[in-house]
């Protein structure tokens, strides 16, 4: 029973298409393996930290610090931004408050002096602006209470100049941490209203909203029309957002982008070449490389197909038998396209030999039911299909089906009818 071993053909095939190991993964893990095990030291550190925490909590309890933290230090907002953060409500106008809010600080309240902190505490029942000038951050009462309810005693950090986001058209980081600065993941459930982050920017000219959850900036999908209607009605919930990313955006006007999200992280509007993760979570190829997954040739929405030219031309070929069927279509992003010709629901064979794609004539001597075309350069594709002899009848109606699958796996169908 050694028949299975005769799989050298399949081994060769799979070796040609094997998944590419991500750049740097081997080096990173190899370096990790070379380091001595840190388990025991880590356990000792954990034990030490635990012991210190007990001491610290005891000291805090003695001076009422725990109670203070639980009632006042709920939100900390830092920095400057032009973004308004509205929790689960319709977009509001940006507000400008000239005076800084009074900071709630244990040292200030108890000793009448402020430390070197650059953060400002915000009462949960106030709409606050962090700093004067052109920048402002506002958190509505609902926002503060909803988030703090998810993480009692947590601190909200709003950073309009998040690290590693230089060059973005607009960006803001919103995270919740504990008192030690450790980030607490905040994820809203499906029936909750999403957080709305408004960025002073616009899409177009290759710009796109994105959400960075630590692996790179992922393109945010545009809200569906149904979701936009719910935004207008104020009834949008997390379950209305894209199920994979739990994000979605829309543009209320030409100068603002609103990203709805059910988790807190870094939000931005970037040019496409800065995207590193697609809307479905896939890593992009290097920007400008032209490979499938080039972010500069990508759209988070399903591909758009348009027919080019008003008709399909049916003719004959000079040196080959059969008929030629010439047509063109436009696609706005990289896709894997599948072309099929139907006659009364039956797929006609397409002869590869003699079929021409963008001026390139194929030579393979096989017939296929579906012609696969990886479209790496979006734009207009002019095709001339060769249909074997006797398949097209004069006066009969046919139609060409174009199936375009984009980098996120979104499918778009297009149909072009023609007469033999």
């Amino acid at each position, binding site marked *: 029973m050694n028949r299975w071993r005769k799989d050298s053909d399949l081994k060769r095939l799979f070796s040609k298409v094997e998944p590419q190991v991500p750049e740097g*993964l081997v080096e990173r893990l190899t370096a990790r393996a070379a380091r001595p095990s840190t388990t025991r030291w880590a356990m000792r550190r954990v034990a030490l930290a635990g012991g210190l925490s007990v001491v610290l909590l005891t000291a805090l309890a003695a001076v009422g610090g725990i109670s203070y933290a639980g009632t006042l230090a709920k939100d900390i907002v830092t920095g400057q931004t032009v973004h308004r953060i509205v929790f689960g409500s319709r977009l509001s106008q940006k507000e400008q408050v000239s005076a800084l809010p009074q900071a709630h600080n244990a040292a200030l309240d108890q000793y009448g002096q402020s430390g070197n902190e650059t953060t400002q505490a915000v009462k949960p029942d106030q709409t606050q602006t962090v700093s004067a000038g052109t920048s402002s951050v506002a958190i509505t009462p609902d926002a503060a209470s909803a988030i703090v309810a998810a993480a009692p005693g947590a601190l909200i950090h709003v950073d309009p100049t998040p690290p590693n986001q230089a060059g973005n058209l607009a960006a803001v980081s919103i995270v919740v941490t504990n008192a030690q600065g450790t980030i607490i993941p905040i994820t809203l459930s499906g029936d909750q209203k999403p957080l709305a982050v408004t960025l002073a920017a616009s899409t177009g000219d290759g710009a796109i909203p994105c959400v960075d959850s630590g692996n790179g900036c992922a393109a945010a999908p545009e809200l569906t029309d149904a979701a936009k209607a719910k935004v207008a009605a104020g009834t949008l919930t997390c379950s209305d957002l894209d199920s994979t990313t739990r994000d979605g955006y829309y543009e209320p006007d030409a100068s603002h982008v609103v990203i709805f999200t059910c988790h807190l992280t870094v939000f931005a509007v970037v040019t496409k070449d800065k995207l590193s993760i697609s809307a479905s979570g896939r890593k992009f190829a290097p920007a400008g490389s032209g490979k499938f997954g080039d972010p500069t040739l990508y759209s988070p929405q399903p591909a758009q197909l348009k027919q080019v030219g008003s008709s399909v031309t049916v003719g004959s070929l000079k040196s080959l038998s059969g008929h030629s069927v010439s047509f063109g279509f436009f696609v706005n992003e990289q896709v894997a396209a599948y072309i099929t010709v139907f006659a009364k629901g039956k797929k006609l064979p397409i002869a590869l030999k003699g079929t021409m794609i*963008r001026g390139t004539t194929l030579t393979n001597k096989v017939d*296929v039911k579906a012609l696969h075309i*990886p479209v790496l350069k979006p734009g207009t594709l002019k095709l001339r299909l060769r249909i074997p002899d006797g398949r097209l009848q004069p006066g009969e109606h046919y139609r060409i089906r174009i199936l375009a699958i984009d980098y996120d*796996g979104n499918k778009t169908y297009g149909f072009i009818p023609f007469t033999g």
Partner: protein
Amino acid sequence: MIGRHDPLADPRALIPKLYRYVAYVIGDGPDAEDVTSEAFERALRYRDSYDPKRGSPLTWLVGIAARCISDRGAVLARAPVPTAEMELHAGTADDFTDEATLRLRVATVLGELSERDRELVALRYGADLTAREVGAHLGLTTNAAEVALHRLNRRLRSELAELDRPPPSKAVEPERKGLDAPAGI
């Protein structure tokens, strides 16, 4: 203290196979990278307990990765299906027929496989395990693993051939529903 048989003495040879195994099971991409890293971290933690009598380092690593995938099952179940993840790395837009098309064909065929067959593909063609190692991983005898691999290979060849086969001349395929899009695009 690492024992005499350090399973991670040559990680450079193991990591690509580990990644490919994971990628064939859950799909190529960031999730596969995360699971590979997580499995490797677990392996580092337990490298002292590796017993060479129970299998090769690669088999041991694949077992750890399988548990990592199982632990993340609920999350990964929401990931796009493999058929939607068409990996293309062709050099130019004119490379219509070679590597890029081959990737599409293989991705299409893998998308049609059952979970069990995908696991077999991942073990045989991703991790490059032998039938004996595949059997050990799946709890099968070597003979049973060979039979399973034989059936898998037969199906793979059949599916790949089917993709390029012209339709039978007399067979009438019923009109598929859901294709009633606008006449023009």
